[in-house]
């Protein structure tokens, strides 16, 4: 029931408590993963409502529910900003070609790409799972990438020209392959889960050249699809960090002694080593460049050296 793909926190959620769609980076693609127990359509609708309230144009590609059902719960101001592209009623275009979108889902996606030319816009894909079942995964990835890129002249992008793509994905329907492929495309990934009737969102936010950040946010959706962020419930909550065992100290249970007591350390320091040279000799050996004109002989007598100056050969009678 817990979806293992990580979630990235958006910048908005890092600061308490602005709503999550604020400050979404340009051209971002954000899939929301849901499961049977924690459904994501309400979150999608809440995000759509937020974008519409910001004055953006919202395009919705509806594949799984009918238009009436999707628009239910929104008031008229939001519904006016919502442009609904219906693939649910007639996905195979059996009725008259004028009514439904021709060409199937791929054409519908590409049409969305061309339509959003003016001002910031949000595209909500009602469900990526439906699209994954009808289109090959690479083609879907390429189309999504084209959607979220700035198609206008590169280098000429105004800050208002951002296109935000929100997608809903039912995790249980897909294997690790498509999930991994879509995750690698996404800027923000939101996985829904929860405990005890309280929904939580694990958000994984990938910034372009920085480490991804992971955050958990508890929330609830009100009947009018506004998003309310909440504090984590304290009762019987099991934040993931508690499940970690305390960090293992590798220096315990060793068969050799890693730590020295004070006496041992003193004994160690006072030991004379066999090849211990004076510091002048050490420095001279370490820096061989200096004083190479003549060769020096360093002699330091050992403890066992016999410093008798007599030549033992004198005793020989030769």
């Amino acid at each position, binding site marked *: 029931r817990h979806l293992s793909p990580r979630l990235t926190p958006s910048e908005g959620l890092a600061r308490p408590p602005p709503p999550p769609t604020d400050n979404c980076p340009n051209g971002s693609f954000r899939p929301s993963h849901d499961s049977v127990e924690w459904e994501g359509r309400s979150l999608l609708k809440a995000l759509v409502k937020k974008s519409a309230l910001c004055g953006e144009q919202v395009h919705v590609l509806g594949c799984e529910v009918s238009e009436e059902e999707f628009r239910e719960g929104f008031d008229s101001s939001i519904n006016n900003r919502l442009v609904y592209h219906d693939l649910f009623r007639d996905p195979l275009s059996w009725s008259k070609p004028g009514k439904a979108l021709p060409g199937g889902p791929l054409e519908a996606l590409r049409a969305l790409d061309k339509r959003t030319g003016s001002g910031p816009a949000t595209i909500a894909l009602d469900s990526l799972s439906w699209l994954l079942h009808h289109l090959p995964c690479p083609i879907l990835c390429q189309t999504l990438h084209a959607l979220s890129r700035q198609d206008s002249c590169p280098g000429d992008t105004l800050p208002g020209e951002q296109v935000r793509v929100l997608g809903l994905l039912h995790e249980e329907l897909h294997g690790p392959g498509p999930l991994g492929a879509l995750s*690698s495309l996404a800027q923000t990934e939101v996985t829904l889960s929860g405990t005890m009737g309280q929904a939580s969102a694990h958000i994984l936010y990938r910034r372009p050249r920085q480490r991804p950040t992971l955050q958990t946010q508890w929330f609830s959706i009100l009947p009018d699809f506004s998003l309310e962020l909440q504090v984590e419930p304290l009762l019987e909550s099991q934040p993931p960090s508690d499940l970690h065992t305390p960090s293992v100290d590798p*220096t315990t249970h060793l068969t050799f002694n890693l*730590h020295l007591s004070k006496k041992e350390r003193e004994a160690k320091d006072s030991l004379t080593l066999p090849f211990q040279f004076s510091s002048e000799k050490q420095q001279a050996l370490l820096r061989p460049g200096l004083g190479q004109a003549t060769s020096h002989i360093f002699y330091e007598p050992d403890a066992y050296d016999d410093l008798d100056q007599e030549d033992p050969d004198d005793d020989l009678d030769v």
Partner: protein
Amino acid sequence: MAAAGTCGTGTRSTGSMVAAASTNNVTSFQRRGPRASGADSGCSRLVSIAGTRPSVRNGQLLVSTGLPALDQLLGGGLAVGTVLLIEEDKYNIYSPLLFKYFLAEGIVSGHALLVASAKEDPADILQKLPAPLIDDSYKKECDEDVCSHKMEPDIKMKIAWRYQLLPKMEAGPVSSSRFGHYYDISKRIPQELIETSKWHGFFLPEKISSAFNVESCSLTPGYMKLLQFIQNIIYKEGFDGSNPQKKQKNILRIGIQNLGSPLWGDDICCTENCDTSHSLTKFLYILRGLLRTSLSACIITMPTHLIQNKAVIARVTNLSDTVVGLESFIGSEKETNPLYKDYHGLIHIRQIPRLNNLIYDISDVKDLAFKLKKKLFTIEVREFLCLSSQS
């Protein structure tokens, strides 16, 4: 026979010709002088191209990967005509760095570049390359880093005192000829360097028309177009020796980003048994053929962690020459493990090629970790916690 030629006209008798030959003390075997080599630059030895050097082990021509530490691990550098495959880390943070180092090294050495990507525009990739460091600023970086690392500079080693001046990974700037430079990741490459360099870009969404036809051959259309583009550049610019009047030989550095990801049209990352499972392997095979017959070196980054079929990963490894894998600790339990706390990830040298050799050229050290500091990407031998001094 040059000897007979110098003897002049045919009016001389054979006997005198022999006599003339013996007086000249010249045998009929003549060393081919500069005259015989024709249109070459006059030297019959190895042509020296900027930014390359011959390997000390097998004489192969090497180029730098942009990271001198990595060059050392690969046996001196990347051989010309081979492929360096980087297995991307999970969140694709560190592999673009290696990619950029390779390209930046190409610009600094004056090589031609070919950048191919399905995700980012090559012009944008080139804008984000790191700036090269001149020698003294690198030394300053090194020293201040060493000072901050050593907390007690007075404690010198007592037994192994001869090693106290030895750096950890022989990381010193190469003071001799220009092979291997250091870069500052926090700064961008100066614009004039990019403008003076010769580069070709391949951005897949621009090259593929919007009509997605069913591919007739077994290669996905993206790969096919890329191969044609590479072949075209190699032929046109004469990297395979096809334009002999070009005086200056140069190296072509090819960089392909995120090969095998769905953005290239390949579904090898999406399903386990896909129809086009041979597309990627065929691409690598043909690419290697193109590289072997031209003066080029290629770096490919591939998201192998997304590939579902493990057999494909093994085939891809066999089809590449040098394979380096990056494993970052983000999101894994190693992040909090005290054994790994100084590093950001592990680097695995999975394969080193045997070029004109019977033995491998691998380094002795297998336990390597990398760390991304503010300005540098360093590769170090991982020190075990148990064996470091406990003072």
